[in-house]
């Protein structure tokens, strides 16, 4: 895929801004519109922008991880947060609230369900990266079929007994 200079330059500036906004959405989600899913989608949009500017290589430069690991890490964090309350004898997903008064910043309220939300955020980002990796590789190079559906070559004889290799 040919990268576009203008898009690539804009992306370099916009990408961190969109990510910061997505983190904002993630953190205000407890009491205001937002949350892990919405924040994750916003961050996902940033990665799509990155992909549109510089192809899948750019995305992999920024997140040098296999998408399986990103997805797995998010799901693990969300699941373990839920199970943690069970270990402490509370119902699944019960949350503890910690209030904290640092100077100048006023009150900071930390709710453990935030970790669940972070897990959701990571899952959504991982899903977008998975989509870009699997389907995007095809967009980069139409000769290469999506790797998820590649099939090993098989050899079989046709009706006349001639060996044919099928892809």
């Amino acid at each position: 895929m040919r990268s576009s200079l203008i898009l690539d330059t804009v992306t370099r500036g916009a990408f961190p801004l969109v990510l910061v906004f997505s983190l904002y959405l993630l953190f205000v989600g407890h009491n205001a519109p937002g949350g892990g899913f919405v924040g994750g989608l916003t961050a996902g949009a940033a990665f799509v922008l990155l992909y549109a500017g510089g192809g899948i290589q750019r995305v992999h430069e920024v997140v040098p991880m296999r998408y399986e690991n990103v997805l797995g890490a998010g799901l693990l964090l969300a699941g373990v947060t839920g199970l943690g309350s069970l270990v402490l004898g509370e119902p699944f997903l019960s949350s503890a609230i910690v209030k904290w008064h640092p100077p100048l910043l006023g009150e900071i309220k930390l709710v453990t369900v935030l970790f669940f939300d972070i897990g959701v955020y990571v899952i959504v980002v991982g899903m977008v990266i998975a989509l870009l990796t699997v389907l995007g590789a095809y967009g980069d190079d139409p000769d290469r079929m999506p790797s998820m559906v590649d099939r090993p070559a098989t050899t079989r004889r046709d009706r006349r007994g001639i060996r044919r290799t099928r892809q």
Partner: protein
Amino acid sequence: MIVLPIAVPLVAAALSLLLSRWRTAQRAISVLTCVAVVVLATVILFEADANTAIVSQLGGWPAPFGITLIADRFAAIMLLISSIMTVVVLVYALGQLDDEREFRLHFHPVYLVLSAGISASFLTGDLFNLFVAFEVMLIASYVLITLGATRGQIRAGMTYVVINLLASTLFVAAVAFIYAATGTVNMAQLAIRLAELPDGLRTALGYLLLVVFGVKAGIFPLFFWLPDSYPAAPAPVTALFAGLLTKVGVYTLIRTQTLLFPPGGGSSQVILIIAGATMLIGVLGAIAQNDIKRILSFHIISQIGYMIFGLGLFTLAGIAGAVYYIVHHIVVKTSLFLVGGMIETASGSGTLRNLGGVARRAPVLGLLFLTAAFSLAGLPPFSGFVAKLALIQEGLDLQRGGIVAVSLLVSLLTLFSMTKIWGGAFWGKPQDVKGVIDGTERPLTMKLNPLMLGATTVLVGLSVVISVAATPLYALSERAAETLVDRQPYIEAVLGPDQVALP
């Protein structure tokens, strides 16, 4: 405690993704998790049976504001039998799937998510989370049904995805209507509030949910997607879908119709007519087919008619019969598909015309198939006989002669189509499609994978256990039906003792 059958497979799916380069670790995680869920489900069943129902409010928010999980006896029975199926089918899949499908296409994490979705569908206590559970289950099933992405699978998968998306849209719309009319989605509270609605509105909402779950369960006339899409998937996936997924639809159908929309006094004529039509059309479709998987797929539909028959009678014995029938059917249907899958894997085709002599090439398959097939048709002393006897007796007691006659005729036709598979695949001259393609002489005895054979044998053994232990199992089904017919224990378990539903 009852959240564990949902949470544990999800965490295991995460680990499985993280360890997706270590094949042995992935296999170990899947097997251990599925076995752990069976253990959990057994404990839950014993506790639910002793205490009528166990309830958990997620996050400690009280019902009806929070998310309620509830395992009454019916849910616990379904949870146990479905978790046993996931273990057996997993072992079979380890023997059947090639490395490509099993590891590169992420069979293991998706399978665990499917298992979590199924558990969640049984355990949820509110209508919206039932929708969420269905989606978790369905999205995993979309991946599994197209696992390998052959041309036929993509085509069949499209039908499956489109139909299920339509049904899900209708479902979420129905939940919105119900919420608009009653102001709650908690099922226990709905049981109270729906009774206060005008009759017309209540009936309309009831039929809307009947259509939604009817599509998922594959009842007449909404079954058309089923025999088209199921046979395309890999054998273990088809077996699990055939055994379990439509039965999740039947479970929710029974749950919502008994808890939320009980017919005022006596049986439901509409449901009985649907039941009769489902039985008859399903079995007629099966007779017309020439492929093992397709014949068996049509049988799913016909068998679902029997379960709906029990629901339609709407008496204690009728619903107990339906519960017992579901358990019997899940085991027997899955084992038939597993046998069919073994024939197909070993000889390269499931079309009856291309098969022959399996009984001579692999006598053990013949034995397994006959046991399961006789049970499906309802010959004594197999488990299908007990299940059908219970339903037919109750039908006669209530003087529903028409539906009883239909169900007897359908049993006969079921037996007929089973003999068709037997005659086409098991008897006759040994044939082998793979041998024809390779141009090689193939040995007379079929080579069977020990994992696949072991899993299938265990399952057929379980169906024998179900017929031998019919007395205690039927008693358990009756106790499950008691809490379905008398809704008070369910409502009290969720909302507390001072809530009363109108009759």
